[in-house]
């Protein structure tokens, strides 16, 4: 198995793991983690596609730039998601505290 094939398979597994967990779990923080894992898998596909064909070529810079952009956008989404999750859980805790 070549390195590219191995990392393709790994990327596919990570993506499916992340997306499945994202859709099927109830816990909000798990969804944030799952989203990050899934995005890592998808970005890994792009990086494997960018591997050069032979010794002389350079790696595909456009795909690398896209992956870099993807990482920064993932962190923005994660920041926003964590803010939302904290706010939701704080409000739920307030409700429970009021009713208890």
């Amino acid at each position, binding site marked *: 198995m070549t390195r*590219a094939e191995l990392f393709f398979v790994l990327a596919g597994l990570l993506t*499916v793991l992340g997306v499945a967990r994202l859709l099927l779990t*109830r816990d909000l*923080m798990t969804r944030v983690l799952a989203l990050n894992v899934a995005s890592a898998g998808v970005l890994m596909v792009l*990086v494997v596609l960018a591997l050069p064909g032979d*010794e002389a070529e350079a790696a595909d810079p456009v795909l690398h730039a896209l992956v870099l952009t993807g990482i920064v956008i993932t962190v923005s989404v*994660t920041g926003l998601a964590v803010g939302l999750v904290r706010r939701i859980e704080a*409000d739920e805790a307030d409700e429970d505290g009021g009713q208890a």
Partner: protein
Amino acid sequence: MIGDDMTLLDGLLAVGLLTVAALALFLPRRSTAVVLFLAFGVLMAVAWALLGAPDIALAEAAIGAGVTSALLIDAVAVHRGHRTERNPRTSRALSVVGTLLGGVAAGALTFVLLGLGARSAPSGGPGGGPGDQATDRVWESGVDHPVTAVLLNFRSYDTLLEVAVLLVAALAVLTFRGNETFPAAPTLPPVPSLLDLLVRTLVPVLLLVVGWLLVSGSVQPGGAFQAGAVLTGALLLLRLSGWPGAIPAGRWLRPGLAAGLTAFLALAYATALLGDGWLSLPADWAGALIVALETLLTLSIGLTLAVIFVANQEPTHTSPRPQRTSALSARTRRRT
């Protein structure tokens, strides 16, 4: 190279990544899950390096294993707990269905991806695909490193929108605080002297690394995003150790956040009105423009990520802390 055989290291790394990801997603304790996610980020950085993507490895180490993990650890440290679980019967049915569907999806995806890998040369029109064109025309871009050339010259529109996304995320997180002010200074007990020593030693080194990453991005892997993320680390280190001025909270907060995007937009409009077209950098100025833009972007990205962390920090449902007389609080008070 695409035809290289996998090594033992590759195999171990792949197994490690899958294991850490699965554990992070399925273990019941949140704090364990988040720390495992940090380990996942570190292993991903190694994977990027093995796949011949050093810029991405730097960015993943600084952003993924750094800022994201800090955000998550801060979120679970305040309210440690276990995941909320479903009703056990639906949970078992769901996990069976989920595993089956997941297995099918994984198989299909593997089949598609391995088929992709088998195809050899990149496609595209005359002159090769976008990757080949970019590599061939790096000399036109004003910098020597292809990824930086693509990010800040050839595809700078994408980068502009990316900076806008960061800014929107920061503004959204700031609005979650409602009527509370952005905390101007951390309310901490006196800090142990060892932490003080660490900060005094480490922050100058970090700032040096920020400058180095920024400048070296023109020639070798590096650039504004990696430097910005390391700057975030330095700012958060200062903030969490009780240094008051690290993150501006009053009237400098919003200008600081908007500086990067504003500079980028100014450049875009300048090139559109006075130059060759939207974001087409003139060839002799390109190098200097790129470095100047990257500097502002680094400062702005560093501040933005730090603001996202700090604005997420305090629980937002507690009673408002004593109002500071800053412009921010005055404005929110006038609005209500």
